[in-house]
């Protein structure tokens, strides 16, 4: 075998702390290395041309590139080899950047380590085989999990692009947080007016199947062929029969049910349609509040329903959908401010969250758009807004900035003035963060045109006083204490990962950060991909985002899914397990450990033997560790290849 070694400088990234020339020289001593050189940027066009040329000149059968992590450029160099007529698996990469130059400053030690890593790569390459990829069919369907604005955008774009879409939303209606908002910054246009038509499009699109009140139960399979089992939770209403007329809700005697959609300000009925624009516009029963389901008597709704759609005996139903790609768009949830004692810990009725305030502002909200105090229904005059509640606070494990609270608080002060010209808004803030297009102008308008008084500082206590609230805080710009008497206090609660985000990530096998937000494939270059092929991210599930960014990412995720599924077949990875029949003793240990059920026991000349189903095998290697015989071997990572690397290092 003729091996060529290319040691990359990566500018000064590697060459700064590794003597790349010495590494190339050392490589010439390794077995079967016939050519070794260093290169400024191996991945650049001239760098790759140099590799292609050397392959021709020295009749190389295999190439080692010592440079960055294979995650970065393995695919690049494999293509280079193919261009020069070599099999793409006759390539090894030694990571001398992340594993060497970036982690150590001692040049002599670094150079030694880099040479050793190259030696390992050479010894492995000497045992590489020319592997060929197979092909497999893919399902041209996409599942979108979460029907907020990001998920809606992704679903519509995929459906318009010709893919079948399954949209799974756990609430009874799609729309997410945006459907609860009154108006949106920075243009102050009505949220339902811009979101509503998109929701209707989802309902009407021939390519979209919507499962509301549903959650993902389990995910099997892999890119191109995921099998997702969805749990359709019991609505106690046959949605095929329900016309959304609302007769049932009008007659339901259980009228004191806390209203989830209205953020628990106001009450609703046990059977209800969450809001007038709900999609699907179907009634569902809250089982905890329903008199029939809790006490066995009532059934008023069943009596009035003109289509006889009520089903008190309905059960959860599991449906399995085969899809080629999955887009996670599960959004965020809001921080529970009762953790903070200084804001009353939830004991004061007129200390509310900004989302509750949105419901008070909304014409379809519990007060029909009149701002009223929850305690006594009186119209407030002095309103204090407190920003960064549950954001940028290490002490409660929320060190990050939610990013959109500065903007929505400014919006809410503007809307407050519009609703009640005699009112006065006060905003306690830490910094104003408004870097979007027309955003800074917007916050200025709130202060300058709408007269909101901005106070830079934190609030230390809220105390009830004669039916009002004394808000005590500091003005750090003026360096003095301030006390404001308020009728209503609105907390700009920050965003946290959606409830259950971690469990979903485990099912999807995607990574998530310590706060539960899903991790993108690369923070700069793969912002909508994940490290699991075929799973993409859209919207706030990846980190708090405002509507424009959520919509943009929804579209981007759709583009990724469309481009993946534009092919009819995907190339299968040949780096899978294989069983040598002659060595296999049929003990079945591999079969019992394989996490993917990729091994079946067969009979061969009357003996039990293991056999790998190559399209199902994920190449995890668990079976190769379990097999006492070494009969199960992972292609491209055989025991002999790994031992050769170990020996290169240790002997």
């Amino acid at each position, binding site marked *: 075998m003729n091996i060529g070694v290319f040691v990359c400088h990566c500018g000064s990234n590697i060459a700064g702390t590794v003597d790349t020339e010495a590494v190339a020289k050392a490589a010439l001593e390794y077995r079967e290395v016939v050519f070794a050189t260093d290169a400024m940027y191996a991945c650049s066009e001239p760098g790759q041309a140099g590799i292609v040329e050397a392959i021709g000149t020295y009749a190389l059968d295999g190439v080692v590139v010592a440079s960055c992590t294979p995650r970065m450029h393995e695919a690049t160099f494999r293509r280079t080899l193919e261009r020069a007529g070599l099999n793409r698996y006759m390539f090894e990469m030694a990571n001398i950047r992340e594993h060497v130059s970036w982690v150590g400053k001692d040049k002599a030690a670094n150079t030694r380590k880099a040479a050793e890593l190259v030696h390992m790569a050479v010894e492995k390459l000497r045992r590489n085989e020319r592997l060929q990829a197979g092909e497999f069919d893919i399902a041209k369907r996409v599942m979108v999990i979460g029907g907020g604005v990001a998920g809606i955008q992704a679903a519509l774009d995929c459906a318009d692009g010709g893919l079948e879409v399954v949209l799974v939303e756990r609430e009874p209606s799609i729309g997410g947080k945006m459907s609860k908002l009154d108006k949106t910054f920075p243009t102050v246009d009505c949220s339902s007016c811009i979101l509503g038509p998109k929701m209707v499009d989802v309902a009407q699109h021939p390519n979209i199947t919507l499962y509301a009140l549903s959650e993902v139960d389990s995910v099997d399979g892999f890119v191109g062929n995921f099998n997702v089992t969805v749990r359709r939770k019991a609505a106690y209403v046959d949605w095929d029969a329900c016309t959304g007329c609302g007769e049932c809700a009008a007659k339901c005697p259980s009228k004191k049910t806390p209203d989830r959609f209205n953020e628990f300000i106001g009450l609703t009925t046990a059977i209800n349609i969450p809001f007038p624009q709900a999609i699907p516009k179907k009634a569902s029963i809250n089982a905890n509040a329903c008199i029939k389901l809790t006490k066995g008597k009532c059934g008023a709704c069943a009596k009035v329903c003109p289509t006889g759609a009520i089903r008190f005996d309905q059960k959860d139903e599991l449906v399995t959908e085969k899809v080629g790609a999955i887009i996670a768009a599960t959004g965020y949830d809001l921080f529970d401010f009762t953790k903070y004692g200084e804001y009353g810990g939830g004991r004061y009725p007129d200390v509310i969250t900004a989302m509750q305030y949105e419901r008070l502002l909304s014409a379809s909200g519990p007060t029909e758009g009149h701002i009223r105090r929850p305690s006594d229904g009186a119209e407030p005059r002095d309103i204090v807004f407190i920003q960064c509640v549950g954001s940028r606070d290490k002490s409660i494990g929320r060190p990050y900035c939610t990013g959109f609270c500065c903007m929505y608080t400014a919006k809410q002060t503007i809307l407050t003035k519009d609703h009640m010209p005699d009112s006065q808004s006060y905003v306690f803030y830490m910094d104003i963060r408004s870097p979007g297009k027309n955003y800074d102008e917007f916050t200025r308008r709130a202060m300058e045109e709408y007269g909101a008084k901005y106070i830079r500082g934190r609030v230390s206590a809220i105390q009830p006083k004669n039916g009002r609230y004394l808000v005590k805080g500091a003005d750090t710009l003026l360096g003095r204490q301030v006390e404001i008497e308020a009728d209503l206090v609105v907390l700009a609660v920050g965003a946290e990962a959606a409830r259950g985000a971690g469990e979903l990530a485990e099912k999807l096998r995607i990574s998530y950060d310590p706060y539960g937000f899903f991790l993108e494939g690369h923070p700069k270059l793969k912002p909508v991909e994940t490290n699991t092929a075929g799973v993409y991210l859209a919207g706030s599930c990846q980190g708090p985002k405002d509507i424009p960014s959520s919509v943009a990412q929804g579209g981007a995720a759709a583009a990724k899914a469309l481009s993946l599924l534009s092919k009819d077949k995907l190339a299968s990875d040949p780096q899978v397990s294989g069983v040598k029949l002659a060595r296999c*003793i049929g003990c079945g240990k591999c079969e019992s450990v394989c996490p993917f059920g990729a091994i079946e026991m067969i009979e061969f000349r009357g003996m039990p033997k293991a056999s790998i189903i190559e399209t199902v095998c994920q190449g995890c290697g668990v079976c190769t560790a379990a097999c006492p015989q070494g009969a199960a071997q992972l292609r491209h990572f055989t*025991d002999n290849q790994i031992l050769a690397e170990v020996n290169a290092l240790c002997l």
Partner: protein
Amino acid sequence: MASSLDELKTAIRKALPGLDVVIAWTAGPDALSHAPLFITEEADVARIEWDPRCSQNLAGYLPGLRGKKAGIVAKGCDVRSIVELLQEKLIDREDVVIFGLDCQGAVDARSARAALGSSRGVRDVAIDGASVCFSVNGEPRFFSPGEVLQSKCFGCAGADAGLCDHFAGERGLPPQFGNPPESTLERLEAMDMEERLRFWETQMSRCIRCYACRSACPLCVCQDHCAAQSREPHWVDQTDHPREKLMFQAIHALHTAGRCTECGECERACPMGLPVMTLKRALNRRIKDVFDYQAGIDPNQTPPLFEFREVETNIKEREW
């Protein structure tokens, strides 16, 4: 023990017509350890021996007798090997008849020989509470259990009488000894890494690569197809170096991790007296910590390394 032996013989006589073979112990060439006896006709039953010299674990013969109806005489510790074989579906429960016995401890022939000076003239061995009595040419010689018994007897939890089809003697009484002798594992744990490596280098340089340890192991399912001799994969090479010998021991230990019941056959078989079970004990200890699992206890349990769970019960990676 005499009465248990009579009970045992009666039970075997009764069961023999329905069985192809019964494995028991009989007096062998070494006066300190009894040899296996394969009984196929009633006349053999009279030759059965039962005393503390029945140290060998006979369970290792069972996988080779698969397809036949086999009876086996088993001490409490031997039953654990049988359980493990059942768990791994290497034997079929309906083809095996287990004759359990009330064991009070088993002799470690190597240390007993050292203590006695020679094994010549030993006629009988009996355990009486705190001492072990060897009658040598008619003279009783007494030793403490720590001097002459197998170390596993000190941690013995008693026979699992539940699994036995027959039981001779009093059921499920474990031997009661204080003060187990210090184990090699404990000595190793007191050493630093360098010292441990030196310890193994010294020990392994004595290994003659006879693979008796492997052949004696009741759980070495591969036997003649052992990875130690394979070239594809080429895990161990022929260099006569402690490194390669220790590599084989590491492979053996890893292959038996969470399966090994610490029956001690590997060490009993080793002609060089190398402490090769220590590695297995060390791994078993980790398995116990991580999976709260001990090999060979419940035939219906799956050994932890033979199944894949996304979330392990005892490994709290995520809390919610």
